[in-house]
């Protein structure tokens, strides 16, 4: 019996995804049971569509952030990049540039921010936290300068259609943001597990010097991770402006902390080398579901933050606890 428990604990620690998924299912069940009757629309397709659309932009950033954090880095500039990417794309379209060209330009802005962050971190050796903190402030400032604080509107309808539904066989309708989210998460999860290039991200985060001695081009890998967050954040910006039919300089404010929380809840370690895209995505979904459930339960809307913070600290603490520590804690309680 004890042996089984021990094995189970090991299995759960090794596969964070199962644990979060379990918690997620438990959460759903309790929200479903908490308020019986017809007015509880928690378990309806319509509500899940809302949840999914709500997390769809964060999910793109979560994918990039997972890479950065596994490589032992950190990126605070994602929220600002989201804003600037959306604005650049929007401004160009309003000025008459073709939609695809404007989108590529928006993504390039994200890539450029990533390259600059990555170069400063690897070649000059500034701490990632500081580098991207500065990046976050500068990029947000640029977004405000470009827009003069008035949102970009009048986006072409061929573009805003991206915020709408994809139609299949004439009767299945799935919002494009959800489609994009699912595709990006699945592809990224597969590549991070199986591709040769992305496997290097784990080695770099696991032990940077050992990675160098293994012949891994460490700086190249780290810069790549920042470019990926940049591009994915800009993509998030483009998608959210398509959905909201406008791009504003305040878009994505505070997104960086939400995204980092989700990645950490999903099992990544800030010291690097550990984490998966699927775990991080489930972390984000968990937070999204709980926030949604609390709204439906009509819990005080400001409780959302309290709960999100508690999930974060619980998830990380659960990781740190082992039997030895529990025993010690128990002994301390008794003494």
């Amino acid at each position, binding site marked *: 019996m004890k042996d089984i428990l021990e094995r189970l604990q090991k299995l759960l620690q090794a596969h964070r995804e199962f644990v979060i998924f379990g918690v997620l299912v438990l959460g759903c069940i309790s929200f479903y049971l908490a308020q019986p009757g017809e007015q509880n629309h928690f378990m309806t397709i319509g509500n899940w569509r809302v949840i999914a659309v709500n997390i769809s932009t964060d999910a793109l950033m979560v994918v990039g952030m997972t890479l950065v954090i596994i490589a032992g880095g950190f990126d605070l500039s994602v929220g600002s990049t989201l804003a600037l990417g959306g604005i650049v794309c929007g401004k160009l379209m309003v000025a008459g540039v073709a939609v695809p060209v404007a989108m590529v330009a928006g993504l390039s802005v994200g890539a450029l921010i990533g390259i600059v962050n990555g170069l400063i971190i690897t070649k000059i050796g500034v701490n990632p936290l500081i580098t991207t903190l500065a990046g976050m402030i500068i990029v947000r400032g640029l977004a405000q300068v470009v827009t003069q604080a008035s949102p970009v509107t009048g986006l072409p309808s061929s573009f805003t259609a991206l915020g709408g539904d994809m139609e299949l066989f004439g009767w299945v309708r799935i919002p494009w943001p959800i489609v994009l989210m699912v595709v990006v998460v699945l592809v990224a999860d597969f590549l991070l597990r199986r591709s*040769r290039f992305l*496997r290097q991200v784990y*080695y770099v985060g696991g032990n940077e010097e*050992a*990675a160098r*001695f*293994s012949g891994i*081009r460490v700086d190249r890998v780290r810069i790549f991770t920042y470019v990926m967050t940049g591009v994915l954040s800009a993509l998030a910006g483009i998608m959210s402006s398509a959905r909201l039919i406008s791009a504003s300089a305040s878009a994505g404010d505070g997104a960086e902390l939400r995204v980092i929380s989700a990645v950490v809840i999903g099992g990544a370690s800030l010291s690097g080398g550990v984490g998966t895209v699927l775990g991080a995505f489930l972390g984000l979904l968990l937070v999204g579901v709980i926030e949604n459930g609390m709204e439906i339960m009509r819990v005080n809307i400001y409780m959302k933050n309290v709960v999100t913070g508690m999930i974060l600290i619980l998830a990380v603490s659960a990781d740190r606890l082992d039997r*030895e520590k529990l025993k010690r804690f128990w002994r301390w309680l008794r003494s």
Partner: protein
Amino acid sequence: MTMGITEGAEPILELRHVSKKFPAVRALEDVSIQVKGGEIHALIGENGAGKSTLMKVVGGIHPADTGEILLDGEVLRLGTPLDALRLGIRTVHQEISLAPNLTVAENIFAGNEPTRYGLIDRRELNRRALEVLEPFKVKIPVNSRVGLLSTGLKQIVEIARAMAGSPRLLMLDEPTSSLERHETERLIGILRGLASSGIGILYVTHKLKEIFQLADRVTVLRDGRRVMVKPVSETHPGEIVRSMVGRELERIYPPAGGDIGGELLRVEGITKDSAFEDVSFTLRRGEILGFSGLIGAGRTEVAQSLFGYLRKDAGAVYLNGERLDIRCPTDSLNSGIAYLPEERKALGLYLGMSVVDNFVSANLRKYSRLGILSGREMDGACAGAVDMFRIRTPSIRQHVRFLSGGNQQKLLLARLLALKPRILIADEPTRGIDVGAKSEVHTMLRRLCDEGVGVIVISSELPEVLGLCDRILVFHEGRISGEVSRRAATEEKIMHLATGGGLSVEET
């Protein structure tokens, strides 16, 4: 229990039938030990034999499952490391754990500084530090930052810090593993002095020679059990080795190889400012070339420059007559030069990752098609290597953190050899690993030579250099001070060259 020199003295530390179990790791089974006042008690055993566990149990890091620990005749209840510290049990770990940016005095009294009006009294701090260092009879400026000291002096500061708490029992875990010979001798003198003041010393080591130089009694552990305890005067190295491994080591060093081939690597006048100067040599196929010298003589720097980790300022390197342009380790591995770093944990291993992840890290290309890795191929190759190199691990999914030092080193070698290198540079390949693993590593290196690979071995252990290498280059202060052939080499000759004795003893 056998009585020795310390007959009659009261035991300071006593372990009675101590057992400890871990889920995956070998631990302790029914171990009893007595360390008496004024005694230096050596503890020896292969890696994984339970030495570290024993120290951790006594140090309060892990509670024992069964059995008793007594200090000065009283049964201890150790909950935390702090309990052990308060009772006067001090541990000096193998890895130096000083704060490099604080001064010597600050390190010695870390957490326990003398204060005046709530502020640190710097003058008093330095005075007391001098007092603590006094019996060590070495000159260490108490004001200097620890990061600036040599490894040998850091080790002494580490011991001084332990002594500052006037302990009853001092436990040392392989304190000499990164020390030069003269530093080791100085340390042995210091420890003898400390013991004569009446404290007990438990000394964990891998080096047989040291046991006979300094210990009063020796306990041998094997697979978590005590297999021998004897006064040192009543035993001999052969007996200790036999009880450690449970078998006779047929031969400690593999016999010299057969044919040494033509020139493989030629190094011409490579120089790196304030590290090494004008270093030239050749390495031939199937040859083991030794780099001997004192720590700080520039051997590691030369090796890391060849590997592309450090940049050289001048000079040229030719592989098979072709000039190499190596800018980073990736280039170097691509041209067939592999490097086994001295600092296993810092530069070699991904401690939080599995055996298989560690094994494939330098060789991902080999296990992938169109950029996608094949889990089955990686697992298969790794399982093969685990078998071939006899790496002891419960599974290839085990985190390497839980492997013993010898097995970690074999894993690193396996990783490099999977690359089929033309040249292998092994930096202190057997440091801190047990006798059995050591001889396996030696055999591996020799077998590699027989396949035509050129091997460079950097080693601070003279017997290893003498036993293993076909030719030895001796470094002194960043230059090659002489070359000695296997036939002509003696410890004296090498030490002479290494200490800058001048006179060249060249012979081929």
